[in-house]
């Protein structure tokens, strides 16, 4: 049954519905269809233009399909192009009519003009119709072999288009291997680039089902391919360079010499005017040097100037994208940027999204030497006409106060804010003063003197009012008229709309009561009565609770409501370090702009090609510190979180790298040998000391997983590994959420540590090695992560015969000690031992083949 025709809608009232016009066009097109008269092409051009313009504004002109096709028999290339555009747009809705176009497109694919061949091939592949794929294979095949590079570039992308219409057709025609051959030998760089784009996409999608594809996908990351592309990097245009650099990021060099070679080769890319090229290069540099602390820090120093230049050149939009990345780096290593604080001053004409980033950066880089100037600058913004930014600035001052040792001067500034008598300034400041007092109770005397002068009538914002009330309760012994202010607030109970404020009011009056009972008793009674009658559930409950508590025992009540307080030493960070590391791993992507990792805003399939370890979103893992690490080392590791802030040490070491942007890069022999000797002498725990992989991060992951507390290891009495009679389903599939659920439900049935043998450990250079190996034994990986020497995997397998029970495995490998810690969970307990034996024997053969 065909659905009833929808009323034609125009996307905006200002645009015509176009119904009558479309009918008109139809008639005119018919008139001109067969005409070969001189001037006919010009008339057709005008008609085609009209059609395309309707198409653009959203008027449906699909009813003209057959007329357009009839008119397309022409040698006029402008007409041809417009027709191709039209056909590409509407073919999907008219699969039968689209067949009409095949003929002339196929003919054009054999035209002697390479331009026509390319155009026709592109249009042919853009029809997106499954019923026409049979017509694509021939022209694509000859397109890939065409002697004109333009046709080959079109054909390479054409293969990808075909893959999206019909993957089977594309694979059956063996196009991927043709592309691979072109990738490695074509003389035209753009052909190579398009082959790379197409292959990345095809093999990433294929890898889910085909082992061969995932092998091919990894082969792209092999040394010969990477070096081949890197050596040609200057032949590529700037956009293709970004593509290649994105690939290089995923390459894992075998030693530090290789790392320096790559960096030397790419050094001049940092001077490129295109920000995308520079950021892609920076990502390569940062990721290559992650395990070399000193060099990593040199990289920070090296990239600072180019980043700042990009921020200040180009359009506002471009500088925002770069500034977001600079923001990320500043947040990771604020000490390295502390002398650059003036670059983060706001300019009056900047949009607020830029100012917000800059304020956060100013807050982060503040230290003893620059705080005075930064705070002075921030105070200027506090009087700004842009109220949201003024608020942010005040908050920034407060944050600096909370992170500094010497808060003396800042407290004075904050108190001066209160004298400005601007409502929003007062409101923000009160909230800050409250937090400040929670951290530095010793300042209460100075603050209270000023806060006491503020009339509660001038404070309207709930957060600020709550802060004021909190201070009145907390310091009622020092504020002469605290009970009376609170009393008057209670009298106006019904006018107070915010439940938050009423809750604070209850607590404050009770605290006040414990300190100055005779003056407060009456107000307390009134507050409790009002609270009990309150319609808000929380307020009502709190009032009732206080009432009963007081009834039960006043001194118990005091110890509950007003116990002696400890000063807060650190306010909780809003973002876990694990999340921050994930964002850093996704440098040069939207994750940085949104300040959240990709699994929070993108589907798995859209995370981009080559996303190996991301299958489970929240489930993917960093490097877990093996349990062999002693507690002392753990502490050391987390202290080293601040690793990057030890900049003084670095600066004193000889002339720095970035003296002149034109001197050859100083990743020379001396620094190599230095780094080399470092790699030898430093124990492998060095890796765990990197901020990216702290033990805390792992705890956070386990929480995210909801896996609960880790289970005590079972006795290590392993059954003798006997030839397993168990058969596994080679095509087992489980989706991440099911895995996660099962993992949460099942308890650990077996947990053990086994030795992998040095060969296996040596073979395990990337997580993918093990993934492929285990796949060969019908054991699938659902998530993996880590860097040498620590890797973590989640595997699963399914029994082949009934019941088709799943086995879940968590496996942590340390290649340094060649040990693997394995936790098994099984749905079918009876075969669990058989499976674990099978798993272990599979693991032990890694690197043997």
């Amino acid at each position, binding site marked *: 049954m065909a659905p009833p025709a929808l009323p034609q809608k125009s996307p905006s009232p200002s645009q015509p519905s176009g119904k009558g016009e479309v009918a008109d066009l139809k008639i005119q097109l018919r008139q001109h269809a067969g005409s070969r008269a001189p001037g006919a092409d010009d008339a057709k051009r005008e008609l085609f233009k009209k059609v395309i313009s309707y198409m653009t504004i959203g008027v449906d002109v699909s009813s003209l399909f057959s007329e357009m096709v009839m008119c397309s028999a022409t040698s006029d290339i402008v007409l041809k192009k417009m027709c191709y555009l039209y056909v590409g747009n509407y073919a999907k809705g008219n699969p039968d009519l689209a067949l009409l176009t095949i003929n002339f497109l196929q003919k054009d694919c054999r035209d002697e003009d390479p331009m026509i061949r390319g155009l026709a091939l592109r249009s042919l592949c853009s029809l997106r119709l499954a019923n026409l794929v049979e017509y694509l294979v021939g022209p694509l095949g000859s397109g890939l072999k065409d002697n004109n590079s333009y046709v080959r570039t079109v054909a390479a992308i054409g293969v990808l288009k075909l893959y999206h219409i019909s993957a089977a057709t594309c694979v059956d025609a063996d196009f991927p291997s043709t592309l691979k051959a072109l990738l490695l030998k074509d003389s035209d760089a753009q052909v190579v680039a398009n082959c790379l784009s197409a292959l990345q996409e095809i093999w990433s999608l294929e890898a889910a089902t085909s082992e061969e594809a995932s092998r091919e996908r990894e082969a792209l990351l092999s040394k010969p391919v990477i070096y081949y592309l890197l050596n040609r990097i200057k032949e590529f245009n700037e956009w293709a360079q970004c593509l290649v650099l994105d690939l290089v990021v995923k390459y894992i060099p075998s030693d530090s010499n290789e790392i320096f070679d790559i960096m030397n080769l790419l050094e001049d890319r940092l001077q490129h005017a295109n920000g995308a090229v520079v950021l892609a290069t920076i990502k390569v540099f940062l990721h290559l040097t992650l395990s070399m602390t000193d060099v990593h820090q040199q990289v920070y120093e090296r990239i600072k100037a180019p980043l700042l*230049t990009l921020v200040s050149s180009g359009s506002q939009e471009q500088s925002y994208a770069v500034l977001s990345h600079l923001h990320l780096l500043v947040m990771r290593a604020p000490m390295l940027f502390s002398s650059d604080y003036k670059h983060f001053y706001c300019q009056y004409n900047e949009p607020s999204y830029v100012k917000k980033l800059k304020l956060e950066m100013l807050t982060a880089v503040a230290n003893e030497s620059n705080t005075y100037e930064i705070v002075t600058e921030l105070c200027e913004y506090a009087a700004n006409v842009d109220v*949201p930014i003024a608020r942010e600035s005040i908050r920034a001052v407060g944050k600096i106060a909370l992170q500094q040792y010497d808060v003396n001067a800042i407290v004075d500034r904050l108190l001066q804010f209160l004298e400005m008598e601007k409502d929003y300034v007062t409101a923000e400041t009160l909230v800050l003063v409250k937090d400040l007092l929670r951290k530095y109770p010793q300042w209460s005397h100075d603050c209270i003197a000023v806060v006491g002068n503020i009339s509660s009538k001038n404070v309207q914002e709930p957060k600020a009012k709550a802060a004021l009330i909190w201070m009145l309760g907390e310091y009622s012994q020092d504020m002469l008229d605290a009970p009376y202010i609170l009393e008057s607030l209670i009298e106006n109970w019904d006018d107070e709309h915010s439940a938050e404020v009423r809750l604070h009011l209850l607590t404050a009056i009770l605290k006040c009561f414990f300190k100055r009972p005779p003056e407060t008793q009456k107000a307390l009674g009134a507050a409790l009565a009002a609270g009990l009658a309150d319609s808000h559930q929380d307020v009502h409950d709190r009032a009732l609770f206080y009432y009963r508590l007081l009834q039960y025992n006043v001194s118990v009540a005091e110890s509950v409501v007003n116990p002696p307080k400890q000063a807060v030493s650190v306010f909780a960070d809003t973002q876990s370090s694990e999340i921050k590391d994930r964002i850093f791993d996704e440098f040069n992507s939207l994750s940085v702009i949104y300040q959240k990792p990709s699994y929070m805003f993108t589907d798995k399939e859209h995370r981009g090609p080559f996303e190996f370890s991301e299958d489970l979103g929240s489930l993917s893992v960093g490097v877990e510190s093996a349990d062999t690490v002693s507690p002392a080392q753990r502490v050391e590791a987390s202290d080293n979180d601040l690793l990057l802030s030890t900049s003084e040490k670095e600066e004193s070491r000889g002339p720095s790298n970035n003296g002149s942007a034109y001197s050859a890069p100083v990743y020379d022999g001396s620094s190599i040998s230095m780094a080399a000797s470092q790699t030898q002498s430093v124990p492998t725990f060095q890796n765990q000391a990197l901020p990216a992989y702290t033990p805390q991060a792992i705890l956070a992951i386990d929480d995210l997983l909801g896996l609960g507390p880790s289970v005590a290891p079972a006795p290590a009495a392993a059954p003798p590994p006997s030839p397993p009679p168990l058969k596994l389903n080679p095509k087992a599939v489980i989706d991440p959420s099911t895995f996660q659920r099962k993992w949460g439900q099942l308890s650990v049935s077996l947990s053990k540590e086994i030795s992998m043998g040095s060969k296996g450990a040596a073979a395990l250079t990337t997580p993918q090695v093990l993934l492929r190996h285990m796949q060969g034994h019908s054991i699938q990986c659902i998530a993996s992560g880590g860097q040498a020497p620590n890797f973590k995997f989640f595997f699963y397998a399914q029994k082949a015969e009934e019941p088709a029970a799943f086995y879940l495995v968590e496996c942590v490998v340390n290649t340094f000690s060649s040990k693997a810690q394995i936790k098994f969970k099984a749905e079918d307990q009876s075969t669990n031992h058989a499976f674990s034996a099978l798993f272990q024997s599979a693991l032990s053969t890694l690197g043997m083949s």
Partner: protein
Amino acid sequence: MISQFFVLSLRGDNIVFRDYRGDVPKGSAEIFFRKVKFWKEDEEEAPPVFEAMPLLVESTHLNWPCGNEDNYCYNCGRDYTDPRDSAALSQVSRRCTGQSLCSAKAWELVLCRAAFGLFNLDGVNYFHVKVAGLLFVSTTRVNVSPSLVLELLQRIARVIKDYLGVLNEDSLRKNFVLVYELLDEVIDFGYVQTTSTELLKSYVFNEPIVVDAARLPSLGPAAMFMQGNKRMPGTAVTKSVVANEPGGRKREEIFVDIIEKISVTFSSSGYILTSEIDGTIQMKSYLTGNPEIRLALNEDLSIGRDGRSIYDYSSSAGGGVVILDDCNFHESVHLDSFDIDRTLTLVPPDGEFPVMNYRMTQEFKPPFRINALIEEAGSFRAEVILKIRADFSSNITANTILVQMPVPKYTNRVSFELEPGAVGNTTDFREANKRIEWGLKKIVGGSEHTLRAKLTFSQEPHANLMKEAGPVSMTFTIPMYNASRLQVRYLQIAKKSKTYNPYRWVRYVTQANSYVARI
């Protein structure tokens, strides 16, 4: 990779729309425009990159198992495709639980969607840049490099301008078929192919319909969108790279513009708090045969500050040496002899492009000194005195100067008093945002100008009037002046013939980026 590219006018009309991958639900342009227009209540501007959920009701192109191929309710005639009706879905579910008749089909629709897991549709990422009063937009669902997409959008705008000569709504509408030709070659299936004006030439067959640049309103309604654009209006040449001159013969010429944006912040005592120059050497070549060009800069130009803090002013006083903090170059530039004699060698591609971007925080002499004063003058009254002194040579003239200063919120009337004999001055009190504006057509080097403004308040002013007003900000353009003293010593065109002597235009211009004096 990107999914779509489109250009919207300020009213939200599609001028050009190209879908490359077909993976973004329709209606994306409208969703985008609404988002940008109503970003937040507090008048914040939408950032150039954001994510927006496709409205559930818009995923229309799917085949529902219920047999419904559209979002049309058979019973009540309601059309759920309308993206403007964002409340549609909640109404559907409400009505369904209320057992209303209409719901039968609609509810089925909702269930089908739930079955497809479409309630968790992931968002579409929107990128946009504002150029010449137009919104250049791109969408994607992939976690791409934001810099890449924003650069690309800017570059597409530039390529279009190269071809059309003038980029604005009118020229785009007249030439949209040509623009489609370009877009076909610039991006294929979401992957960038080339943005080189030169390479694209062989694929463009439409003749541009050139819009007369002279008749263009200089700013007009597009002004609000021009604000962020650091590119200068007026300097770029309004000539298409493909269109023929009326005379039929192409004129051999090359333009080199040294454009500097300066940012200065003066403290209330007139001391320079921060200063920076962001410069670009922009080139546009109309030379046939693509000859090689040598561009020589100051011989004593030095780059980088040897690791010292770049705000170390004391070190920079050593006469006349131009020290850049950093710079970057267009990929066509060869730097082989740059270290020796500060010469750039390049074969300029067609179209406009930046040869070099540079940044300088070395101390320089600011072109204008600003003196601002606000003091009480009786009850409910105050007087503002603004003084501008032009600190540059008298044979140079600055133009289109605008001085702005926020005044206390409770100001309700302002009367202005200009110097006797002042010409080309405009004064205005912007009541809505409580700001006084003083415009000057031109200022000759060495001259000084004063404005007095008498403010009337609606209430008793606060004790500290200084905190209620300011800072003073200033915008201006100074042709043939550059603050950095970076010079093009010579421009050499390598072509043997003696008769060949193309026009060479080397132009300097300085503009204010953020020029602020605190009071």
